[in-house]
């Protein structure tokens, strides 16, 4: 694409099999089985200590939800979830995550410029420090507008970056969208080339997921609202941005994400073209404060009915 030399220094493809990797695979599965046993031992301790056993029950839940189930999911989903593009991101456990509901054209600097101009904040990376800060800010309800988002995977890679907008300074409620660069030469189903894929959802609350037994953000089921919010804010703030809508790209998603939240969509996939958005122009526009989306920049491509 527009970045010469980005992928020229790639190392040669590694061998497909090595003893080291086989050992790792063994340890990975063995640790999962050992963790199941550990959960059982902790649970049996629960009944040996009377009221103090409640603490052991909490430990049992932590072990089960954050160690055992993720590892078992990871082993099983490696086998049963297809690894090619199915319009869904995957969680770090390999479960199906948020649906991909937005695509972009343009290089990385343009995407950053367009999102910043549209008043989106780039999310911090997940580290110990930022994880701790998201816990404290959630409990104390203090604002943390660069809060990290959890990693989701597409093309076997974690998102390249994520943007978000906090709602009313409450870290439990936020707009957020993750971006993945597509592999070189990769085409969407149907044959269109896009540079970026993105998954935007709205976190409406922090809650307990009955799916993974973990505490996570609950997302709003109407993901189309969030998708349209992203598109309209980017168009409003960037006169150089255009959008093409692929109608019925993924019609009929009525499913759940990795946390067990249900998801509804009309299946349209907007492709935002931000390749003409430039850092300097964004700065100039912010000064003059123009913000209206011209309707002629929206174009609709009807879906091809193949049945």
């Amino acid at each position, binding site marked *: 694409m527009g970045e010469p030399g980005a992928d020229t220094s790639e190392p040669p493809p590694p061998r497909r099999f090595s003893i080291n990797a086989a050992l790792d695979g063994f340890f990975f599965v063995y640790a999962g089985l050992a963790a199941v046993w550990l959960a059982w031992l902790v649970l049996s301790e629960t009944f040996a200590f009377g009221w103090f056993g409640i603490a052991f029950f909490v430990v049992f839940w932590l072990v089960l939800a954050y160690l055992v189930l993720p590892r078992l999911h990871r082993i099983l989903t490696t*086998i049963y979830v*297809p690894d090619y593009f199915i319009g869904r991101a995957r969680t770090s456990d390999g479960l199906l995550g948020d649906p991909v509901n937005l695509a972009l054209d343009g290089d990385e600097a343009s995407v950053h410029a367009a999102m910043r101009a549209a008043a989106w904040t780039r999310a911090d990376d997940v580290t110990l420090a930022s994880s701790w800060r998201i816990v404290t800010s959630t409990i104390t309800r203090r604002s943390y507008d660069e809060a990290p988002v959890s990693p989701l995977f597409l093309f076997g890679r974690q998102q390249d970056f994520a943007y978000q907008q906090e709602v009313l300074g409450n870290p439990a409620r936020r707009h957020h969208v993750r971006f993945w660069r597509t592999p070189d030469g990769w085409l969407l189903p149907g044959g269109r080339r896009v540079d970026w894929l993105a998954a935007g959802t709205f976190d409406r609350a922090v809650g307990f997921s009955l799916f993974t037994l973990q505490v996570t953000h609950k997302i709003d089921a109407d993901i189309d609202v969030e998708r349209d919010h992203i598109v309209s804010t980017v168009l409003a703030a960037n006169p150089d941005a255009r959008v093409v809508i692929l109608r019925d790209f993924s019609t009929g998603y009525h499913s759940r994400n990795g946390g067990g939240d249900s998801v509804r969509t009309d299946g349209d996939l907007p492709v935002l073209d931000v390749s003409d958005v430039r850092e300097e122009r964004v700065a100039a526009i912010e000064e003059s404060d123009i913000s209206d989306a011209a309707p002629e920049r929206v174009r609709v491509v009807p879906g091809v009915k193949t049945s």
Partner: protein
Amino acid sequence: MSVEKRPAFEPPAVLLERETPPPQMRRPIATSFGAVLVVLRALAGVVWLIALALEWDRVVTEDLDIELEPGTDETAASAVILTVVLIIGAVILLAVLAMALLVYRGSNWARITVMVFATISITVAAIDYFSDDAEITLRTTLITLSLDILVLLALSSHNARAYARRPRPRRSGG
């Protein structure tokens, strides 16, 4: 670009495939956590050694049925054996601490070694538990066993694996 048709499920051999980590990778939480757990495992060993030294006479007289009278050869020999055991124990614990440091710095062979020993330890405990009905409770060996399992979980995770096997610029003499 033509792509072969793929089956609807993935082969289990995917679990054996190499990770292809990004060249610039920050130390994942799993690696730091694993190193900390190995240090805790060493501390548990220190506690065990101190307890052994304090209870040594009782262990010798009650468990081994050897009379310890002051001034006899048995008493002198028992003191020598205790010293040797303590020294060997200290050396092993120092090696464990060195392993923790190496794991923290992302050494792959240290990570594999630690996991091999954790696996052996877990397996022995499991054989005891399931065959002899040895009790594993907080008062006996639950703490060390759970440390072993947590070490194995942390260091076998994909992040820790990718970090230990990340491509590194080869330094001269290294």
